[in-house]
């Protein structure tokens, strides 16, 4: 029977071993479209290890899946504010990357970080920040301010996109009113909510994928990540990136080994491997963010080396801060504000 034959052919495909034979294996669980295939190929060839990459699209999904167990992953790449949660819940292996051979390459700035002092658990993968992207053919004023999306100038009204990220948006808005991140000061938070409710009708969208829209000139401004701004500038030369002087959030995704990893030794090899400047540069060249490894600039695409989006000017250095994980009650409060804004 035709149907039967078709089914058995399909069954044969389904039962094929998912992973080819290799000396060892390494299962990486990372953000989608974030891992340089070239770098993985090099790692596989160097150590004769078969690497499998699986994608996630949010920190919360990754956390929920690993916490539930039975995942089979060795490596995960959580964002800075999530690392303490992973550590506290005992999900990470204390891999001591600070004692690895290539650790000397890590930029001093990224060694004593609040989420992993001295780097006992994680090594830098990539870092960036959320700031202001503006099409300067539409608006010519100061772009180093959050007022671009909170109190938008008339030229930009109806052409602003804001990343649909609760923490990043609330961070910038709280700082806009002089508050500190994780504040519970109701006066500030009331202003924050009212401002967001007032500003939202002036935005066109809260969406991902701004690069396209700057190229097609659907958007004239955005509160979005700097790596994306750089790529948008490559498509539309009028695009410039601003660092909000009131305050903006940094992010850094860091590589960590899971406590129940099946291939911890290969995972450690990988950690050491990505702290090599040449390999770190491959990561950046693929995903277009800075990596935190000294000397990697030498191997980076020229277009990235001098990109103004990737270098924080010294006068704005102070305005940036890492998003920390707020206390549960505070987070609940923020989620309520966010629901209120988006209802």
């Amino acid at each position, binding site marked *: 029977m035709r149907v039967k034959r078709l089914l058995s052919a399909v069954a044969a495909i389904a039962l094929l071993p998912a992973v080819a034979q290799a000396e060892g294996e390494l299962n990486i669980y990372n953000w989608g479209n974030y891992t340089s295939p070239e770098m993985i190929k090099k790692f596989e060839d160097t150590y004769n290890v078969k690497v499998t990459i699986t994608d996630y699209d949010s920190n919360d*999904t990754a956390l929920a899946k690993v916490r539930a167990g039975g995942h089979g992953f060795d490596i995960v790449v959580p964002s800075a504010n999530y690392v303490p949660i992973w550590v506290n819940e005992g999900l990470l292996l204390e891999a001591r990357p600070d004692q690895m051979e290539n650790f000397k390459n890590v930029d001093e700035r990224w060694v004593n970080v609040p989420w992993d002092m001295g780097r006992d658990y994680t090594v830098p993968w990539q870092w960036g920040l959320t700031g202001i992207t503006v099409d300067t053919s539409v608006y010519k004023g100061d772009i180093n301010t959050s007022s671009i999306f909170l109190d938008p100038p008339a030229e930009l009204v109806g052409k602003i996109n804001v990343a649909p*990220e609760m923490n990043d948006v609330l961070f910038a808005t709280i700082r806009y009113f002089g508050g500190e991140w994780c504040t519970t000061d109701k006066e500030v938070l009331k202003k924050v909510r009212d401002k967001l409710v007032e500003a939202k009708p002036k935005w066109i969208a809260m969406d991902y994928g701004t690069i396209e829209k700057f190229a097609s000139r659907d958007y004239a401004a955005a509160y979005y990540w700097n790596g994306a701004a750089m790529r948008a500038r490559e498509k539309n030369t009028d695009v410039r990136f601003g660092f909000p002087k009131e305050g903006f959030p940094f992010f850094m995704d860091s590589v960590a080994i899971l406590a129940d990893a099946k291939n911890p030794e290969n995972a450690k090899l990988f950690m050491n491997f990505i702290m090599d400047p040449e390999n770190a540069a491959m990561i950046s060249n693929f995903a277009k963010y800075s990596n935190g490894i000294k000397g990697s600039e030498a191997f980076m695409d020229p277009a990235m080396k001098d990109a103004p989006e990737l270098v924080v000017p010294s006068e704005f250095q102070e305005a940036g801060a890492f998003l920390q994980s707020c206390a549960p009650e505070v987070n609940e409060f923020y989620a309520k504000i966010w*629901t209120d804004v988006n209802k």
Partner: protein
Amino acid sequence: MSASDTPARIAQRQKTRNRWLLSSPALLIVFVAAIGPLFVMLAYSFMAKGDYGGVKPWEFSTDGWFGVFFSRDIFDDTLTIADANVTIFLRSLRLSLLTTLITLAIGFPTAFFIATRPARMRDVWVFLITIPFWTNILIRTFAMQEVIRNEGIINTVLVATGITSEPVQILYTDWAILFGMTYVYLPLMVLPLYASMEKLDFRLVEAGYDLYANRIQVLRRIIIPIVKPGMIAGSILVFIPSLGAYVTPRVLGGGKNMMLGNLIELQFGAGRNWPLGAAISITLMVLVMVALLVYVRYAGRSGGQHHG
């Protein structure tokens, strides 16, 4: 032999057994991979929320359920009905109802068209309806963006033909959500309609015309009553999933206004309030289930009257 074991009774019992046997595979699959796990969710809705997502196991709390119906004002602590939830629910309800009506209005004639093709061509037409859906929803939604954006096809045509002087902002409005959902759910309406229309006996239709009925009367009195099961099935398949739609409001609506799917997703994501997410979805499920059973019962009964 007791009096109850008459042959009729035995046959009846056998019939009951067969019914259960026949339906058991489907029931089993749904129980194992959909309903069973939901009991976990039900349990979760009565637990305290975990600090960073998840729940605190075995710590009883009704905060989740409380949050479905009431909200404590975040600033002055006054207790009110959860108006954010209600607003979002009503928006979802409105858009889903409209989607159902539009897909029905477009889907009915389309299904009728397919059902009246020569028998050997019908499968080909059915295939043609589903082919666009072989590409996945995300990329289809991106392509929709292309069609409705300001420099997109629709606006180019509108401006070029002078119907409007300026492009009409469709993208990132509720209209875009409506367009998108209609597009996404159209086959879910067309196929069940087709399935019940396909065997429409045109001798009945002819008889209708012979009795001097006009086309509208034939449609209302003969065709619709026969294809009613298909209309019901299609409406269910469109209406219910669109209530929880997630991708379309996100990509086409610009994500500025939440629908129920997005509200629930927030609780399991950055909102870190799993019990509330669980409670909202169980509430939704109960509402829909009750509405469905009432609807099917009512629709089934009134379907009979039309034949009279």
